[in-house]
């Protein structure tokens, strides 16, 4: 995957190019460097790049001019900028030109890797889900129910989201194989199904734990100190938001307001709402679910 991705780093300081190269090549990307806007254009005329990471302030042909050229002549190339908050005018121009993201300067390797990974994800949102994960085996009865459900929606307009919701209820999550079945069953392109799944936070492509912990990050809960509760959970279960514990017992999710703000801070486990949760109480509540089997 990563070795298919070609990135051009443009900066008049050789040390920036060198450090980007070191960091990103270790991740398996193909990196070339260019010391200015003119060199970058020449390089891009030779071969296609997926992304250009460019500084804005450079002698001769500067970053903005380069981005304008890319948008006109190589629109399929994504642009990231490196900036240390220079003049607002240039950032404003860059934003208007449609850059994907920016890397703050000075940056750490983690930040650079993160921004690049997210840029790739962003670009792929609109292309088909090629995710060739190993096709997990699902019980045939589950697949039969899935197909039955899909066909009951076949001729209704706008049924994709309800079908995905039902499918997630049946299977628990929406791996590529399930998306493919839905795409076929409803006669909707796979890319569109994937686009919808990745857009809505309700849908997950990852398997979930036996118990789902939803922590409310709404305003009322924030003002009442939910972030300390969340820290406590992360620390104790050794997982972040959107992750699942090693023993597959729990997954941790964040939601924005459960509409029970009067009881803030609020956490929901499976279908039970727990009110006025404190960092002190929270692990005790969670531990009670350890011994209970998976939700019905």
């Amino acid at each position, binding site marked *: 995957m990563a070795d298919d991705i070609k990135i051009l780093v443009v900066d008049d300081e050789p040390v920036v190019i060198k450090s980007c190269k070191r960091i990103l090549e270790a991740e398996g990307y193909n990196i070339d460097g260019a010391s200015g806007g003119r060199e970058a254009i020449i390089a891009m005329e030779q071969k296609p790049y997926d992304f250009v990471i460019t500084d804005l302030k450079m002698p001769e042909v500067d970053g903005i001019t380069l981005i304008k050229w890319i948008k006109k002549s190589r629109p399929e190339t994504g642009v990231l900028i490196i900036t240390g908050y220079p003049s607002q005018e240039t950032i404003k121009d860059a934003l208007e030109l449609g850059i994907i993201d920016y890397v703050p300067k000075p940056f750490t390797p983690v930040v650079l890797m993160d921004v690049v990974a997210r840029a790739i994800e962003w670009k792929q949102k609109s292309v088909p889900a090629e995710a060739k994960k190993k096709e997990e085996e699902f019980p045939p009865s589950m697949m039969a129910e899935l197909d039955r459900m899909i066909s009951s929606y076949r001729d209704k307009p706008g049924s994709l*989201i309800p079908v995905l919701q039902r499918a997630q209820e049946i299977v628990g999550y929406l791996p590529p194989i399930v998306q493919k079945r839905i795409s076929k069953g409803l006669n909707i392109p796979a890319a569109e199904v994937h686009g919808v799944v990745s857009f*809505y936070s309700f849908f997950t492509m990852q398997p979930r734990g036996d118990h789902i912990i939803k922590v409310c990050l709404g305003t009322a809960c924030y003002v009442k100190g939910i972030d300390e509760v969340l820290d406590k959970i992360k620390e104790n279960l050794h997982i972040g938001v959107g992750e699942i514990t090693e023993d597959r017992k729990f997954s941790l999710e964040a939601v924005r307001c459960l509409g029970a703000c009067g009881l803030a801070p*609020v956490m929901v486990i499976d279908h039970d709402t727990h009110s006025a949760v404190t960092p002190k109480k929270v692990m005790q509540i969670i531990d009670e679910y350890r011994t209970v089997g998976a939700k019905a």
Partner: protein
Amino acid sequence: MGRFRANLMVCAGSGCVATKSLKVKEAFEKELKKRGLENEIDVVLTGCNGFCAQGPIITVHPDEIFYEKIQVEDVPYLVEEHFVKGRPVEKFMYKEPTGKLTIPSMHEIPFFKHQVLRVLRNKGIIDPEKIEDYITRDGYLASAKAVTEMTPREIIEVVKDSGIRGRGGAGFPTGVKWESCARMVSDRKYMCCNGDEGDPGAFMDRSIMEADPHAVIEGMIIGAKAIGASKGYIYVRAEYPLAVHRLQLAIDAATEAGLLGKNILDSGFDFDLEIYQGAGAFVCGESTALMFSIEGRRGMPRLTPPRSTESGLWGKPTVLNNVETLAAIPQIILNGADWFKSLGTEKSTGTKVFSLTGAINNTGLVEVPMGMTIRQIIYDIGGGVPGARRGRKFKAVQMGGPSGGCIPESLIDTPVTFEDIQKTGAIMGSGGMVFMDNTNCMVGMAKFFLEFTTDESCGKCPPCRVGTKIMLDKLNDLAEGRGKEGDIEILEELSYDIIEGSLCGLGQSAPNPVLTTIQYFRDEYESHIKDKWCKVGVCRKLTTFFINEKVCTGCGACMRACPSKAIIGEKKKPHRIIQEVCIQCRTCYDTCRFKSIIIGPADYKGDPMALLEE
């Protein structure tokens, strides 16, 4: 309600269900049966009373005795005393947060006393799962009148004349919206309801849908007749399963009764209604995005015009209204425009529902006439700020959620109307009010809202997608001690760029929380930047905690609470914090009842007592 001696109303809104009110209801039924009272006392499940923090809530009619926080164990005693011996039980009644005054009657409790119930007139009184209960309260009279006696023109005139403005955020006049859709000629039109309620910290719409689902449906029927729609959708967020359940029951019952569906009341008018569940994206509350979502696509807003009233759902003329707007409509049709206008101000007529949360004694849902001041809402209804004895004071109220702003103490006498709130830089929004006291950090608040918007931006416009992230990084810098001279100006400039360059309301309003906190709390930003000091002790890297040895009583409470075991001291002697061990969590500050914790700037090595003089 006639043949029973009394009605025992058990609140079954989301809040009280979470505090186990359904178990309490079962316990009541069992206990009443045991004592042979099941034919005398009727047990009814109601929607949210708006006072969820005191839940589970029980009220007994006709005396309107109000009980709070009733647990299963309390039930036998309560039945024995109240229903057998006829002695209402004081210990379960509401008590004033300040004094120890007990208030038995619901209407005497300040939280309820100052409210005027129009949209919420049925809350806690009817069983939302029974259409008969709604009909007894004049339900479906207005839609019957609209469908059988009124012309679309007449309906629109009344609604326009009432002056009602949309309760979903923008405050657009509802009658005008209906009129422009009614004018369109099309083979199909749609009437939709926005129950997405994305503002994190607000739950008005949830409560209305749960407590009085038929009112929303009735409002939609009237709207449909006015614009000429034969099909409607209610878009409800995925986090509201109880609302979906009750709405579905209501739709089925209304259809069964011939009040909804084909040929309503033999008038020849058809209106079919369907619920559509959202899938968790804040931006889908925006009208064009919401319609894409119903069509089964990614909910990304589009450029307007064309407005939805011209080309909305599947390209057909569509009206989208907020839940509360629609629930207010039947009353307007029944009682007339003048009745509606009799409350509120000239440009903001009627009543509005607000949810009060955060640093306030009475958290909950209230309906008040427009034009009441923020002060009245906080002190007369909300019961003030908790912890007044420990020096907690009202600092600001956030209105309008992530699109809104913070209104400071100095503007506490602002009347709550669309136009006055807008003047402060905040917006009315959907009615969420989150209160903050002097322990909340405003830089932290701004950061919180920007985290929300960067997360929820659909990503279509770079200024919104990237610009908010640059701002968030900047705020993180401030909170972690990397702030520099000039950062405030950078934040302001970026804000204007984002407002200008964004396509939909999300991006256009995302900088509001930052702009208003800078406007009203600039000194707080400056102390983060120049002094590396978060004076309220929220931004951990900008604080040092000390104990004021002159005040400390040596009670040891902080020592027991400190998660890092950083506090030492002997009983009844002043305690001390070992700085090397302290992790700046502020627990001691929140624990100490004697105000003896002092918060200093980052790595402060001087005399802590010197900080007090400032």
